[in-house]
């Protein structure tokens, strides 16, 4: 189907030799965005590593009291920067369209992450911002914001598991070798980390709680490795790409 579908005439004409400016513009969003992501979620908002789900209500109020300013700074900046994530979805999906794989998986990649951005990232910010907005709120409602924020952040499993799964399968099926096979194995391992996070909805203590050794630490450490690998692999893919290459939409 790749060969049969004619490209848009305007696009295919006179493209050879032009540098891939739009791809590089998108790629350069990658390293600063994930650096910022780390700064926001680790030292500023204290979502990673997450505080304990077993905290009594009074201590949850104290948590928001102690970190209110950095939570507000971190999540306000996230609200400005979050669109960078969409740019990166587009960039990876575009590289997937260069594969010898039906467009289904590239489109799925965009769709799953466009959904996942809300429950898996932004909802945590809304909940924490609501908690810090009124420190004198009923403590039980502050605890509700705490649970809403952390459970949505740590527990939005399916959106990301689907994305990791189809990304891995696409790499396995691709004969153009846009991405190396080892990236697919890391992506499969990411599916496993989403699976082991299932008990966060049930346990408030121990290794399976949202701050537990298995549910969180393994997943977070691996996520960092995964993102670093993805950034490098996308860079390599763009470097190898010929400017005149025809890529179906």
């Amino acid at each position, binding site marked *: *189907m790749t060969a049969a*579908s*004619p*490209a*848009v005439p*305007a*696009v295919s*004409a*006179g*493209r050879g030799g*032009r*540098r*891939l*400016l*739009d*791809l590089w513009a*998108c790629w350069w969003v990658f390293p600063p965005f994930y650096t910022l992501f780390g700064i926001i979620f680790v030292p500023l908002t204290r979502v990673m590593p997450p505080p304990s789900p077993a905290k009594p209500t009074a201590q949850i109020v104290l948590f928001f009291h102690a970190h209110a300013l950095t939570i*507000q700074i971190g*999540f*306000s900046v*996230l*609200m*400005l*920067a*979050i*669109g*960078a994530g*969409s*740019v*990166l*979805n*587009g*960039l990876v*999906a*575009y590289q997937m*369209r260069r594969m010898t794989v039906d467009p289904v998986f*590239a489109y799925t990649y*965009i*769709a799953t*992450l*466009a*959904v996942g*951005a*809300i429950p898996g990232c*932004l909802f945590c*910010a*809304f*909940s924490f*911002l*609501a908690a810090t*907005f*009124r420190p004198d*709120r*009923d403590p039980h*409602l502050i605890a*509700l914001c705490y649970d809403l924020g952390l459970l949505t952040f740590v527990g939005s499993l399916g959106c990301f598991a689907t994305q990791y799964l189809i990304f891995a399968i696409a790499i396995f099926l691709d004969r153009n070798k846009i991405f190396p096979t080892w990236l697919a194995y890391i992506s499969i391992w990411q599916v496993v980390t989403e699976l082991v996070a299932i008990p966060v909805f049930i346990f408030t203590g121990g290794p399976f709680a949202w701050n537990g050794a298995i549910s969180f630490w393994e997943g977070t450490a691996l996520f960092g490795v995964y993102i670093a690998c993805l950034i490098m692999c996308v860079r390599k893919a763009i470097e190898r790409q010929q*400017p005149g290459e025809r*890529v*179906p*939409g």
Partner: protein
Amino acid sequence: MSAQLVSLWMAAVFGVILLAAFLLFPGFFPPMPPDLTAEQVAAFYAQHQAMIWLSMITVNFCAIMLMPFFMVIVYQMKRMATPTQVLAYAYLSATVSGATLIALADLFWLVAAFRPDRDPQVTQLLNDLAWITFTVPVGMIIAQMATLALAIRLDDQPRPVFPRWVAAFNIAVAVAVAPSAFAAVFHTGPLAWNGAVSFWLRVCAYVLYVAVMFFVVRGAVRRQHQEEREQEERTPLTAAAGAEGVAP
């Protein structure tokens, strides 16, 4: 009647309905101050329940009806002579996430209005979540405008799909909405969610944006149809197949 023209008509009709719904929402004119007490917030929902239903159920039903219009922009981005189509994909992703946020904010308002006899503290929390979700996550809009602006700049052909000034216009609107990201921090002043910047500038800039983009996109679609008709007249047999193949 092409799908693009249908989408433009939908945008015109539902855009006007949405604007009317926003004008009717009692919480917008004037925008609810963040420093109301829980009891005042609860009293607001009890007093204006019918109007909140009317306006927010309308928003619920009509807001996503603008989606086809934004998909016309995605399609027009794919027609641009950019090095690749990556920016159209990025725009699509940002549009979907952004649309989800308005749907979510609308639901918070409707849930808050559902039981006026609820604990006022709970109603206040729902109201806070509605305003925060409605006001602060501007990053998705900024990503839409930035990717569209870059695509227009890179559209390397004698007659670009969108005129060049549209790129500058997109950046200007992105700058106008950006400060609202800090609305969940301030209770008063221009950056508070009812403030001159976070409410008036952001809402007016976005309404103007949709209105201007409607005519820009309509111009591009009309020209595309015109070019397709001319091509059809020149080569009647191959043109039909070509028109189908435009969107793989």
